[in-house]
């Protein structure tokens, strides 16, 4: 599963929400509707943050919401949601979060290439800025594929 397989239906743009829990809930609806996760997976993603702190905020303005496989991941899949307004995750200097990537993985390795490609894009400040500000899902996907 590589980045070029991501389509506009995997992307939510300018999601309206007012706290981080709700942000994770809303942004993971796509995975739920696609049948890639069970609903308890969403609770698990929120629970790990309560237990361990905001370690899912992986870089400035970006959160990688995920939980363990056994918490209800059905297929390896990934979806994206940009937030407007940006939401605080109590992640200090990395706040506020503008993009939530929701990952479900059924094993530890099949999605590694995808994450590798993704990190190349996210480390490029210009591109990640463009992702945060994308006006439509199509535009967002186009930036993802521009690599």
């Amino acid at each position, binding site marked *: 599963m590589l980045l070029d397989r991501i389509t506009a239906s995997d992307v939510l743009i300018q999601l309206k929400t007012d706290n981080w829990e709700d942000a994770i809930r809303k942004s993971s609806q796509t995975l739920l509707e696609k049948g890639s996760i069970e609903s308890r997976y969403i609770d698990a993603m929120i629970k*790990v943050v309560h*237990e*361990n*702190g*905001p*370690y*899912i905020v*992986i*870089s*400035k303005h*970006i959160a*990688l919401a*995920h*939980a*363990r*496989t056994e918490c209800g991941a059905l297929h390896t899949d990934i979806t994206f949601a940009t937030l407007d307004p940006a939401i605080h995750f109590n*992640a*200090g*200097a*990395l706040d506020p979060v503008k993009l939530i990537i929701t*990952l479900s*993985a059924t*094993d*530890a390795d099949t*999605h*590694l290439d995808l*994450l*590798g490609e*993704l*990190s190349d894009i*996210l*480390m490029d400040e210009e591109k990640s800025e463009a992702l945060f500000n994308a006006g439509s899902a199509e535009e967002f996907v186009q930036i993802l594929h521009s690599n």
Partner: protein
Amino acid sequence: MSVKVKIQNFGSKLSGMVIPNLGAFMAWGILTAVGIAIDNEVLRSFIVPMLTYLLPLLIAFAGGNAVYGFRGGVIGAVATIGVIIGSDITMFIGAMILGPSSAWLLKKFDKSIDGKIPTGFELLINNISSGLIGGALAVIGYLFVAPAISSLTGVLAGGVDFLVTHKLLPLTAVFIEPAKVLFLNNAIGQGILTPLGTTQLAQLGKSVMFLLESNPGPGIGVLLAYMFFGKGNSKATAYGAGVIHFFGGIHEIYFPFVLMNPPLVIALIAGGASGTLMFSIFKVGLIGVASPGSIISIMMMAAEGDRLKIIISILVSSIVTFLIAIPLVKRAKNSDSQLKDSVKEMEKMKGKESRISSVFENQANTNYNLADVKLIAYACDAGLGSSAMGAGVLQKKLRAAGIDDIKVFHVAVNNLPAECQVIVSHESLMARVKEKQSGCYFVEIVDYLNAPEYEQLIKDIKEAREKAAD
């Protein structure tokens, strides 16, 4: 550097050559044991070439690689082929000497011409210098190192001969056990003990000589110590090695365990000597050569009425070795990485509360030697999202910095392996990581993608390696 640290250094260098190759030793042991047991021509044809060429060359490569990377490994193996060809005995000592030392020479040479090579010619010059120096070292190995090691065999054999003729049989262990570990067992077994035993056989109908070298007691004692008190890879391998050694009679399988922790020779000598003493007291013997030296073939060759006494003697020697080996194996745990000892000491002195205090943990970090790091664990809660991403980024950065021999893997905090060198994790997970592991090098990050800590870690590793190289 204190003598203790120096010896530990030397020990960890030896184990660095042996441990990565344990799998090859196992493969050889299995092929040999099965090949002899079922008398299969195909399997038997592996025995000699693997022992003569593959295993010493692997050790030479690992030794060279530890000193000067892949290039050092290559020249180490090239130089070692010289001692292998120049001698009739298995050349593990030769490999352990020539592997690292030729890599060191090449490194000095590279340093001396550094900056003087015209751009574009680096690869050419590198290969030519490897070729010329490696070839020359191989010839030197053939002409000088191989005869020197062969004469060492002569000394050991002479010692055994002397003790036998002066009726000091138990003391032969002083020569036999170290000689075995250096893979000179056949030279002694077939060169001295078998002829002596055959003579006795004609006079007495049995001979104890056949038991001196084939006694599996000391070897199984060492392996038992690793099974119960070892750690990580060596502990796991000890089980299979024990079966191959004791029942398959392939003693060679336990030699690496001693080579990576040389003081264990003392345990072997004590066990061998007490076994031989028991043999002498019981006046037992075999009616022929027990080859391979497994408990089964020894029982088959035992003189009528001696079986139980032989088993008791073997048991005694294994228990003696086991008991002496325990503290030595336990101690080796701490010297696995050279400075873990002192880090642990420090933690002890500082008391329990230091575990919580990250200031002290950082101090532990400054004492950690990063030069030998080969594995970096990147931990997060689930072990598949953020840690996977961070691990990928760090791996890429290492590669970009020219460090190819370090592997970064991602893992859940709860699944952290027992042996870790460096652990990277997010600030908010670090407390859990430290609860699970101590004595590691910890890197705490906040930003998985752009952590400034990555650059610092890479810089520290490079500096540590340069320091270790000088």
